[in-house]
């Protein structure tokens, strides 16, 4: 391999090493916890952006997280499946439901699609609240078992008793999500998505099946939402319908936009920063929402392209000199 190939791979390699070593330097469980939550949010925000690349804004993510969380919890508790089997199944459940409801939904354009997804979330929440004998009603499901331990003698020993193990699981989840979504987006499928977003008429005139790609994007995005949901359930070991409402959908949406949804890295930055803000702003007690709102406004007014565009701006500043 010549240098041109190696050099660009360097910074992600460094990043990976840093991330792998985090638990060595940071033993504080609370910090690890925040990082894990961050991982969940990154997964959600990135997958939501993936749906947005075909030009449709979904507020169904909370509903899909809920479906993922419940299906994996129920599969493990009621059917005694292993977490490692339940995790992908949860994703697939969310994906297939997204596909079924998505097929009629994608006919709806713009704000209509957003609205129907919003009500879809409401509907799912109501359903899991009322289907008591299966979902445990308002209380939801408590004491969801941890993931089954992975033990390779001498090599690694993940028992998921500590936050460290969950940190690595979250890291794996995020890695998997980012790599797959980036791979798809950078392939010709991504180009098709983007062409549908930019001009549906033109895309169809050159043979792009826009409806098909909308459904594809929606279901794939929801797959990862489902995965995140399953992780949520087994990490927090408790789920309740109230946790997956309108608010969650909106938060994920905000992570995406504040980070900047034109770039792949945008939602990642958004999720990282906005997961930290509430933690840092706890000191404000009742007035914490002000801080959050302030950040939203600053971004939306002065950084329309999202936080991700900050470095670009600086580069622009420096350019003339």
């Amino acid at each position, binding site marked *: 391999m010549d240098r041109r190939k190696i050099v660009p791979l360097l910074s992600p390699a460094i990043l990976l090493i840093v991330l792998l070593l985090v638990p060595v330097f940071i033993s504080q469980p609370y910090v690890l916890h925040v990082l894990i939550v961050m991982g969940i949010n990154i997964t959600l925000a990135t997958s939501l952006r993936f749906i*947005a690349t075909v030009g449709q*804004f979904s507020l169904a993510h909370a509903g899909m997280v809920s479906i993922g969380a419940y299906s994996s919890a129920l599969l493990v508790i009621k059917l005694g499946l292993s977490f490692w089997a339940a995790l992908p199944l949860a994703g697939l459940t969310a994906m297939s439901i997204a596909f079924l409801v998505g097929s*009629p*939904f994608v*006919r*709806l354009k*713009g*704000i*209509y699609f*957003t*609205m*129907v997804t*919003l*009500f*879809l979330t*409401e*509907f799912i929440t*109501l*359903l899991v*609240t*009322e289907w008591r004998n299966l979902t445990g009603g308002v209380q939801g499901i408590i004491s969801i078992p941890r993931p089954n331990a992975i033990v390779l003698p001498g090599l690694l020993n993940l028992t998921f008793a500590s936050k460290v193990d969950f940190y690595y699981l979250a890291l794996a989840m995020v890695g998997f999500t980012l790599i797959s979504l980036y791979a798809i987006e950078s392939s010709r499928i991504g180009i098709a998505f983007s062409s549908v977003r930019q001009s549906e008429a033109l895309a169809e005139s050159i043979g792009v099946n826009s409806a098909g790609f909308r459904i594809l994007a929606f279901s794939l995005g929801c797959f990862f939402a489902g995965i995140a949901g399953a992780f949520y359930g087994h990490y927090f070991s408790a789920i309740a319908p109230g946790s997956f409402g*309108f608010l969650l959908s*909106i938060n994920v*949406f*905000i992570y*995406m*936009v*504040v980070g900047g*949804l034109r770039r792949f890295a945008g939602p990642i930055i958004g999720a990282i920063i906005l997961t930290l803000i509430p933690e840092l702003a706890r000191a404000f007690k*009742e*007035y914490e*929402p*002000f801080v*959050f*709102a302030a950040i*939203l*406004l600053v*971004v*939306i*007014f002065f950084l*329309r392209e999202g936080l991700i565009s900050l470095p670009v701006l600086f580069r622009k500043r420096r350019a003339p000199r």
Partner: protein
Amino acid sequence: MIEQNILNGLMSGWIYILVALGLTLVLSIVGIVQLAHGEVYMIGAYTVYCFCVVLGLNFFLSLLISILLVGLLGVVLERFFLRPFRDDVEGAIVSTIALILILQTAVVGIAGVGYKEIPSPIQGVLTILGARLSWERLIAILASMVLVSALLIFIEKTRTGQAMIAVSENREAAALQGINVNRVSSVAMFMGCGLAAAAGALTGAIFDLTPFMGGFALMKGIGVIIVGGLGSIPGAIIAGLILGLVDGVVTALFSVQVASITGLIVIILILLFRPQGLFGHG
């Protein structure tokens, strides 16, 4: 009992209509789903509380003041938080969400989270063909009818009203005809927020006030405008009554939960099979 249920339904229906009309005005003219509409409704209620209870003014006077003040607040909000995001969905969502947080937290800070109640302007209960109804509920229904007809007349009879229709049909074309779109937007927001404030105040006299009463109103409002059709006033009225009756009657026949599920199913079916709504065009 059925007439009682229908009456219950009508009452909630009219409140939904007030909320939804405001929402649909803003949506069709400013072109934004004003997610903080629920908070405007809440602030309307608190303003009346302030004038009626704290300063001891007459209820109806305070209602009027509140409609005007909140309307003006609406104009300000439109200018600074909505207008910049006319043509981008995601920007509008984020800025209105920020508004929700700001308004809610502000009210928590000023009025506190404690329970507030606006005393009913006229005490007592009256019986209409076997169904019972408290005066403040009757007032809510009548006031809503008056406000809605006032709105209809305004839109039909005044030039601004016609301008609003023009803008809602096609903003660019309207602008070319020399209509001042910004002014029309301000007017729309003024009226929209005024209606929301009225709805909040009227419900405030019936129920209690909390800084978090907005979310409920918002969801109902969005539901109504979807069923009725974006930008359609008769649609909003019919849809509001439909959803109100669902809440009134289905609750009494089955349960609150079944009622809310039914409402959602209605909304989703409409979205799927008639996305432009019952009365929407195109």
